[in-house]
């Protein structure tokens, strides 16, 4: 068993046509023809914006830029490149005035807490603007961050539909190239930009290439941890990754409801989200 990069290579034309059809069809089932994307200037939200523009038409996509005082100016510039290239609608709403009172009241707030507040305020703005625009929120989270839980619950993970969620970060990069996402966005170090100098790979303690190969082996190919070690991954890295996937599972499912009645939502009241559409 090997764990080479080629297993993660995807046919980007096929991915593109499926994901464009997905956005159009899933929104259409619920009577929507418009979408809203929180555009950070990073690769994931850029892809979501490209796919939404292709699926719905640029005039039906609203890209929201929601900077904070410490956000990198580059993030805004890169988001602008996408807006200009796609000719989607756009709106800038700074979150600084919204989050500052809370940060001032709790001056000892850790940067992770502050980051979570910022992500959740952005979520509130996205959903509010989606109501005004008459569209649905298009999610941007990729498979790597969903599996590792590298996301804020009810923050950046909140959306109505997510075209990116079954593509690993390294596959997102392949798709980004095929879609024509500006190279400067594809090539910069991925970052949630919640505090200066933050990078995904710095926080995760590994590279996306490495962890994606491992996750693909463990999840998609259903390999045993021992097989992953035999394929060349260090045993502690395999264990940490699996622990991380397990410990963050709560972010991927609805919270449990105490089942005390004869028929309970989620247990034996079972309907798809697309029920009746």
């Amino acid at each position: 068993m090997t764990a080479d990069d080629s297993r993660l290579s995807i046919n980007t034309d096929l991915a593109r046509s499926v994901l464009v059809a997905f956005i159009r069809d899933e929104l259409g089932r619920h009577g929507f023809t418009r979408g809203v994307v929180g555009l950070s200037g990073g690769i994931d939200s850029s892809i979501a914006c490209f796919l939404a523009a292709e699926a719905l038409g640029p005039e039906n996509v609203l890209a929201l830029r929601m900077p904070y005082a410490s956000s990198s100016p580059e993030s805004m510039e890169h988001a602008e490149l996408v807006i200009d290239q796609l000719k989607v609608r756009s709106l800038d709403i700074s979150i600084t005035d919204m989050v500052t009172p809370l940060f001032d009241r709790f001056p000892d707030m850790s940067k992770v807490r502050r980051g979570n507040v910022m992500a959740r305020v952005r979520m509130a703005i996205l959903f509010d603007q989606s109501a005004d625009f008459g569209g649905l929120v298009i999610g941007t989270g990729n498979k790597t961050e969903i599996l590792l839980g590298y996301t804020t619950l009810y923050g950046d993970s909140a959306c109505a539909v997510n075209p990116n969620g079954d593509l690993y970060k390294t596959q997102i990069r392949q798709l980004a190239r095929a879609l024509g996402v500006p190279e400067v966005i594809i090539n910069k170090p991925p970052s949630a930009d919640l505090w200066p100098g933050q990078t995904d790979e710095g926080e995760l303690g590994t590279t996306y290439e490495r962890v994606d190969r491992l996750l693909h082996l463990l999840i998609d190919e259903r390999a045993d941890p021992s097989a992953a070690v035999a394929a060349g991954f260090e045993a502690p890295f395999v264990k940490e990754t699996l622990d991380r996937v397990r410990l963050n599972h709560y972010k991927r499912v609805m919270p449990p409801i105490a089942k005390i009645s004869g028929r309970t939502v989620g247990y034996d009241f079972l309907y798809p989200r697309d029920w009746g559409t």
Partner: protein
Amino acid sequence: MPSFKLGLAQVNTQLGGLRNNLAKHLDLIDDARKEGVDVLAFPELSLTGYMLQDEVPSVACSPTPEDEIFGPLLKASRDLDLLVGFVDVDERYRYYIAAAYLSAGKVVHIHRKVYLPTYGLFDEGRFFSPGETMRAFETRFGRMGVLICEEFWHASSPYLLWLDGADMMLFMSASPVRGLTDSGQLQSVAWVERVNQAYASLFTVHIGHAVRVGFEDGMIFGGRATAFGPAGNLLAAGPDFQEGLTLAEINPDMVRQTRVRLPLLRDERPAWVARQLAQIQQSPATCPSGESQ
């Protein structure tokens, strides 16, 4: 037996929207009629949508002229034969994924899905009862057999229909396609196509495969209906990911030609197979009992 035109209707459906789905059927039947189609096949659960879950009991239909869904379909079948997918219910309130073959205003055959996938992303066994028979039936275009999705992932299913005289097999599915790689086709699409081609070749029969399109809760129904001839040759293929009507000219003489050259049916030994199978079944360690089915 004269040639006939097979139509494969590739549709998206509304979950539980029987009337809207019926209207779409009737529209496509009109289109097919204009194209001179003789037999028009729809995909699995074409009248109800696939991911029904707890909605199953409320969307069951009765394939009778009095039924508000089947009445118009039976009427439409007066001049072209129809195969439609629906939820069937028996007198003891057991629900089935089913297919009805309609011709000349009458129900010719009902097939209830025997193999219900209940693993991975599938949960059919939770909501449906398994059918108990798999039989071929006579039509004005020769003897046919119908299989629904998971059934033709089991080689035993087309084998039984073959021995029961089916020279035309109609497959219908609403299977979520999956498996993105660097290939131009999703893995499951390529797999199904390979298998159908193999069945057509091994059983020297015609195969038509009617496929769903659209999305339900993120699951993709990919389209690309196909028809294969008895030499394993691709006769027609529908579009990917969009609705459409795929047409294939079925020439029953191709079955004769192929079997003269390749007498696989003549040389098949069902009685010997049955004896071997009976012996093999004595070894539960290696042979699944299927009792839970």
